[in-house]
């Protein structure tokens, strides 16, 4: 698989503080929407700032489009659009003027300004200053600025922060559209699990500076088949002894029996054995294991 962005053994430590990142191996496949998940302070922004050269790299390697970032900084940044934390807009300039500032640097045709303004639905803002925009408009303008030069890779750090539900839906649809229609790879960081779940094809989970998981969303969700199973009976002690005698990995927990890594067929067999032993089975259920549960499992263990 070819990776649009790859980091190896990326580590970082802020002066006088503990390690912020430890051996991060990020692999963002070409054409994917890569959700970079983690709670606040996990190291998402630090990773993205290192990838863009906004922080000086201390250890590790960063490769973008197959090229080492440090040696090819200019060529790489020519193909990258980035939005880190809150939008960077010149509040005394209009949307058009903000885009002209970047158009001059990227030397792209001026008609492209109108295209991206149309795309983010800001074509009719006229002379209104960016400082007078709503937060949603500011975010959309910031997205337009990242798309202006037709990048191959978009790096977005918490782009839905502060948006209302409607704004979040609009942003999601916009990102899906540009990924699908223009083939732009998107690396998006967020602490909002439902957003990442609805948007991403691939997921990386970071916590306390360590990358805990990285793969496709399907692979992550497939792990739900190995989710814990809870059994309630009228005699948990006898049930526990019976199952342990048969070599089942089971433990008592909060008035239930808890089993890990049990297949559907095995659950049915255990149920039959308990009933045959004269034990009343009140309920068997697989713990609901959505992205949130998986995420919590990962960061808590």
């Amino acid at each position, binding site marked *: 698989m070819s990776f649009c962005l790859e980091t190896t053994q990326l580590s970082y430590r802020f*002066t006088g503080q503990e390690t912020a990142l430890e051996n991060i191996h990020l692999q963002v496949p070409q054409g994917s929407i890569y959700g970079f998940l983690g709670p606040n302070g996990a190291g998402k922004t630090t990773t993205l*700032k290192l990838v*863009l*050269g*906004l*922080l*000086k790299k201390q250890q590790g390697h960063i490769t973008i489009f197959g090229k080492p970032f440090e040696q090819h*900084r*200019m*060529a790489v*940044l*020519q193909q*990258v659009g*980035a939005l*880190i*934390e*809150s*939008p*960077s*807009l*010149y*509040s*005394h*300039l209009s949307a058009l*003027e903000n885009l*002209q*500032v*970047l158009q*001059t*640097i*990227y*030397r792209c045709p001026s008609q492209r300004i109108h295209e991206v303004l149309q795309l983010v639905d800001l074509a009719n803002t006229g002379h209104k*200053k960016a400082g007078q925009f709503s937060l949603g408009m500011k975010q959309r303008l910031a997205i337009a*600025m990242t798309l202006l030069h037709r990048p191959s890779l978009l790096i977005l750090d918490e782009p839905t922060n502060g948006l209302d539900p409607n704004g979040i839906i609009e942003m999601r649809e916009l990102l899906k559209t540009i990924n699908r229609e223009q083939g732009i790879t998107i690396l998006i960081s967020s602490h909002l699990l439902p957003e990442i779940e609805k948007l991403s094809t691939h997921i990386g989970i970071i916590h306390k500076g360590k990358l805990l998981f990285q793969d496709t969303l399907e692979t992550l969700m497939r792990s739900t088949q190995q989710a814990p199973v809870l059994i309630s009976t009228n005699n948990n002690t006898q049930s526990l002894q019976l199952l342990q005698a048969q070599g089942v990995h089971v433990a008592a927990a909060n008035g239930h029996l808890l089993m890990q890594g049990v297949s559907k067929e095995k659950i049915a067999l255990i149920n039959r054995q308990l009933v045959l032993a004269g034990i009343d089975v009140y309920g068997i259920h697989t713990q609901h294991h959505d992205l949130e549960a998986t995420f919590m499992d990962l960061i808590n263990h």
Partner: protein
Amino acid sequence: MQLSFFYSFKSEWLKTRHSLASWLTISGAFFIPAIVLFQRLLYVADSAAVNASPQVWEHLYKDNWQYMAVLLLPMGVILVSSLITQLEVKNNAWKLVHSTPQKLHTIFSAKLGVILLMLLQFFLLFNIGIYLTGVVPALFNRQIPFPGAVFPVIAYLRGSGQFFIACLPIVALQYLLSLQFRNFLVPVGIGLALLTASIIAAKWKYGYIIPYIYGTLKFIGKQPAAALYTLPLSYFCGFTIASWLLYYYKKQKA
């Protein structure tokens, strides 16, 4: 390299549109000439005598520069240099600038270039303002003749050029400070403190070592020869190199 500097410079110049720094440059350039003009319209007899004199332009030059040179010009330079640099801090835009395909030295020099161009723009407008203080009273009052003497373009350019050089140490140090401190008040506060110190030290025999004093010395005309070009240009080069090194080696670029 030159082409990328041109585009970076153009981009930086676009950012100054509608900015406080650009309004300050324009209004600051016409502020003193407007007051002098008002005074000349009020005192008709004096204005008529001055306009009839062959030294009319020297007279108007002194009238305008005496208020500008010592206080307003250095204050304006302090404010504009800090405001231009702080545009990125105020708009949280350093991270945007540093994630564009521009080399650090191009960003650094383009921003400094914009400040210097704004200073040149100020001198141009200020000289136009001085010219208007000579001509406009004659348009409004028939008792005042048009200035008889030819406008001394070369002498005005030389004078403005020397004041421009006198401002360079202020530009460079304010630029350095504004790149290092996120709080706008720090560079402005330090700048105003140094300016006050330089005004107080104007009569001190070693006052010429203070980098903010050269405009004052140029106006009172008591500066040692080195204070005209060598010292201000040396300070400018020194502060600019220090500023670049501090900017380049800054750990975090956003």
